């Protein structure tokens, strides 16, 4: 009823011609079903900060916010007394500092970065394929990464690689935040994207629909490779593979965080320049070209960015389902399909969702952990289904 009234009011405003003299924000409000993207962005920003703080405080050891603040910004002398933690014995400042600075802070920030990258890549893929149901895994990057990781888990015994990879990798260590398995995932993901892109590119340009089909084929192929690897694996390897597949941020450290944050920074620098072109691409490739968009270059840039984002995410946190599909979809329902707003909002939404999901993964069966991929699906799917009931109102 209220919606109807707003709509009628909007019509009256428009027909009186007032619309052409008002600001962008008020024209947007005339599209009655939309939320002002600036306000939503500010709201999401606050929510993200809140989620990050809460996620640092919560976990198998719940910390009061005051000590989280102290651990982040330094203890003052008056807080020398031992910190009482709910339900457990008291722990020292030093322990709190370790928990917050070495464990939770990098993990929560990594969750935010990866969630943002997954959200953004989902939005880009849906624009590129001009299909609101597209998902970053469509171009085969996830399946390739899983195959690469499985390959390392099964065959990656130290004597296989000795001599041409740094020795610390085999002691369970990492370079640039990447373990040997992550490197395998990254290589597998990049290789499949390159293959899919090559298959879809002819002298006439890159065909998005061929890319979709090639993606399906390559996904099937790498999927069978992964299955074969699982078939040959022993029980320990099988367990490692299956846990890796479900995704998790338990391996987070500052090196990985820096890697993810730099990728996110690159994406954040390049993508805003593509946002308007991506809007035009929704009209169709030929139409976009007639509106002055260099479509081939745009497609290349977008695919490289998505491959980078998803490849790094999968390498650092395994395959995390659903964020790339639902977050952009939800944001589009709220603010409309304009990528200038959709891309940053999908990043914020993805970050919020993954921070919350990872926090839940840590506390649901504490002190053990659930794979975060399970949580994202359990959180996301019902929300998505409830939105589907109203999809006609949003024009899908």
């Amino acid at each position, binding site marked *: 009823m209220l919606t109807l009234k707003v709509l009628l009011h*909007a*019509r009256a405003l*428009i*027909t009186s*011609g007032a*619309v*052409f003299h008002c600001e*962008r924000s008020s*024209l947007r409000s*005339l*599209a*009655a*079903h939309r939320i002002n993207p600036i306000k939503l962005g500010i709201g999401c920003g606050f929510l993200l900060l809140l989620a990050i703080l809460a996620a640092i405080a919560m976990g198998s050891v719940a910390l009061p916010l005051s000590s989280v603040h102290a651990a982040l910004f330094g203890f003052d002398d008056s807080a020398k007394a031992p910190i009482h933690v709910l339900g457990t014995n008291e722990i020292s400042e030093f322990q709190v500092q370790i928990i917050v600075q070495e464990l939770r802070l990098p993990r929560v920030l990594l969750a935010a970065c990866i969630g943002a990258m997954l959200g953004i890549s989902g939005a880009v893929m849906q624009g590129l394929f*001009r299909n*609101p149901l597209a998902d970053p895994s469509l171009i085969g990057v996830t399946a390739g990464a899983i195959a690469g990781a499985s390959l390392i888990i099964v065959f990656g015994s130290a004597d296989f690689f000795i001599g041409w990879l740094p020795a610390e990798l085999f002691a369970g260590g990492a370079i640039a935040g990447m373990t040997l398995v992550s490197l395998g995932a990254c290589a597998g993901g990049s290789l499949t994207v390159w293959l899919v892109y090559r298959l879809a590119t*002819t002298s*006439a*340009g890159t065909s998005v629909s061929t890319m979709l089909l090639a993606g399906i084929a390559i996904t099937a192929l790498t999927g069978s490779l992964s299955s074969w690897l699982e078939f040959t694996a022993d029980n320990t390897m099988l367990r490692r593979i299956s846990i890796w597949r479900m995704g998790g941020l338990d391996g987070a450290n500052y090196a990985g965080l820096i890697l993810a944050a730099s990728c996110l920074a690159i994406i954040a620098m390049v993508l805003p320049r593509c946002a*308007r072109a991506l*809007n*035009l691409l*929704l*009209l*169709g*490739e*030929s*139409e976009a*070209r*007639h*509106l*002055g*968009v*260099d*479509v*081939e270059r745009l497609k290349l840039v977008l695919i490289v960015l998505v491959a980078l984002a998803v490849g790094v995410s999968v390498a650092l946190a395994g395959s995390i389902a659903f964020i790339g599909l639902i977050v952009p979809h939800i944001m*589009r329902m709220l603010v*409309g*399909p*304009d990528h200038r707003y959709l891309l940053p909002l999908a990043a914020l939404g993805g970050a919020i969702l993954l921070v919350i999901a990872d926090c839940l993964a840590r506390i649901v069966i504490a002190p053990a952990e659930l794979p975060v991929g399970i949580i994202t699906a359990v959180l996301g799917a019902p929300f998505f289904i409830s939105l589907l009931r109203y999809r006609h109102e*949003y*024009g*899908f």
Partner: protein
Amino acid sequence: MGFSLIDFAHSILTVERLNVAIDAAQLLSDIDLQIEQGEIVSIIGPNGAGKTTLLRAIAGDFFHTSHRVSGDVQLAGRALDQWPIADKARHVSFLPQFSSLNFPFIVFEVILMGRAPHSTGDTEDRRIVAQVAEMMDLTHLLSRNYTQLSGGEKQRVHLARVFAQLWAEQGHEPRVLLLDEPTSSLDYKHQYDVMQAIQNFAKQGVAVIQVMHDVNLAAQYSQKIVGLVGGCMKFEGGVEAIMQPQMMHALFGITVDVVRNPSSGLPVIV
């Protein structure tokens, strides 16, 4: 840019020995065409004659597909593929027959996309959108969701978009408007509105090339008519020369009578 120095009588678009083929199928054979500023040219012919192919070849669509194109298309004395994409978009706008837009933009945003090649600023772009929306009778639909419109309304939105793209003060020549069946899903009133708008563009010096399935509508509003059959140009000429029973028979294989429109005096086939 210096395009304003172009002689008004000089043809701004020339097509010479244009051939288009895909796989073994020859879609267009040896098309020659010259279009002058301010001229409205209608392409008519039966289904599958190559009308859309000709329009798309002129628009330069086949540089990005697997079609084989030979021949020469020149815009303002410069080969079409020599025009940078962004530059061409300020001078040529193209309305395709179908649109596959399925994202819930509001009508205002879709029309505003037509201003993307220009950097005229937000205020000016909004003014132009308001004007073209008024012209296409879309003002009351501006805040509506594009995906929820009817077929005819969607067509008007895209017409408004391509009109907005060429909306410019004079001196921004050359301007070419390529329209693939601009009136195919419109009612009579809106057909009339669209043809009036096209004529206004032509009066400002815009060259218009349109594929028309309604021969009578083409005859009422064009200076020149091109008849295509099987990818070959059967004839090209003024309205009076083309609107003849034998011409229509050669083109569509039907027998017609040609009468006069009592108000305009222009020929009408019945």
